[in-house]
């Protein structure tokens, strides 16, 4: 029999006020073609020596992950599973720009080793000393759902007892310029970082909510049919998600974070997060514990 899966803790750094949920009462209205995260003061979290090899995206991922570990009381998760659409695109640019300018000799090893998509998941594991399962999913708009689905399957089957799931993406000036040129209309492009601790078994009183179902649909035209199959108090769609967090890779992860907190606050007993803006669609169904 499958074990139930719960979100025990969740944390975000986004275009809304970071590392707290007070913003939910009065969310910031987004404007402009692209919006950057509101970053906390990272000097409070890292010494200059610790921060020397951390790009902004890694600092965000590390701070949200640490907060989740602290809140959940789990110091070393069984699994670290990450979703990212573009990976460490800032470091990728730092690596590729000098290559274009100066050729293939004399390239920085730091920019090289941090230019891969799985840098975030692996650096979080190294920082925490976790040697367990570590996987990064890069599936465009459903990267978060892919990571979440992996975690839920492992937790349901008992392969893992807890799992740190994250969704992280950053926007650079280059990426913003290209995206604005390709899709000039619509909600602002953005960036964000969200981490959550998923646990299985029992019925933890301190959980924010239960993750009742995760689905990824390769035919978005069948989304409405699938949505009709759920009995949710509230269906959180892309227009709401994007108005709160902008258009970014972790948008659906941030939506799940918001939904989990709304359920924990008693505003709804169940929420279906629908993410159908891309070629694939993701559905995440959350219920109160």
């Amino acid at each position, binding site marked *: 029999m499958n074990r139930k899966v719960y979100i025990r803790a969740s944390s975000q750094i986004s275009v809304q006020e970071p590392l707290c949920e007070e913003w939910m009462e009065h969310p910031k209205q987004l404007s402009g073609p692209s919006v950057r995260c509101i970053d906390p003061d990272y000097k409070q979290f890292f010494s200059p020596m610790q921060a020397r090899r951390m790009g902004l995206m890694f600092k965000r991922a590390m701070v949200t992950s640490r907060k989740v570990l602290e809140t959940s009381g789990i110091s070393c998760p069984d699994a670290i599973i990450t979703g990212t659409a573009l990976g460490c695109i800032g470091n990728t640019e730092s690596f590729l720009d000098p290559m274009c300018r100066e050729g293939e000799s004399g390239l*920085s090893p730091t920019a090289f080793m941090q230019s891969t998509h799985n840098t975030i998941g692996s650096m979080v594991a190294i920082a925490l000393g976790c040697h367990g399962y570590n996987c990064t999913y890069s599936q465009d708009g459903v990267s978060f759902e892919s990571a979440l689905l992996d975690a839920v399957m492992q937790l349901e089957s008992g392969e893992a007892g807890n799992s740190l799931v994250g969704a992280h993406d950053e926007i650079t000036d280059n990426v913003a310029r290209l995206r604005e040129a390709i899709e000039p209309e619509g909600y602002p492009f953005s960036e964000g970082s969200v981490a959550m601790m998923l646990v299985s078994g029992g019925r933890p009183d301190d959980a924010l909510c239960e993750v009742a179902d995760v689905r990824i649909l390769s035919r978005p035209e069948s989304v409405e049919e699938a949505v009709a199959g759920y009995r949710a108090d509230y269906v959180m769609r892309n227009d709401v998600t994007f108005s709160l967090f902008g258009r970014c890779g972790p948008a659906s992860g941030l939506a799940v974070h918001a939904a989990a907190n709304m359920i924990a606050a008693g505003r709804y007993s169940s929420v279906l997060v629908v993410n159908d803006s891309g070629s694939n669609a993701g559905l995440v169904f959350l219920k109160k514990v």
Partner: protein
Amino acid sequence: MEELILELKNRILEALKLEDMTPEDIDSDAPLFKDGLGLDSIDALELMLLLEKNYGIKLKSPAEGKEIFKSVRTMAEYVAANRVK
């Protein structure tokens, strides 16, 4: 020499992205690795790159850098004696 030491400290801070440190925070005679500044093997590669790009000094291996990178002062002495630009 002191001028070169200051220049190297600024280049080290920039290359290693030690954003919140100043040249005054680096002791010219303290070890760069382990107990001193606390740099590691990746930093050693960045320092090799720094010498090559700015002074035209190409080290054959990180092992060769062991003596050169003992401190900022030993680094400056090596640069002064071997620089080609």
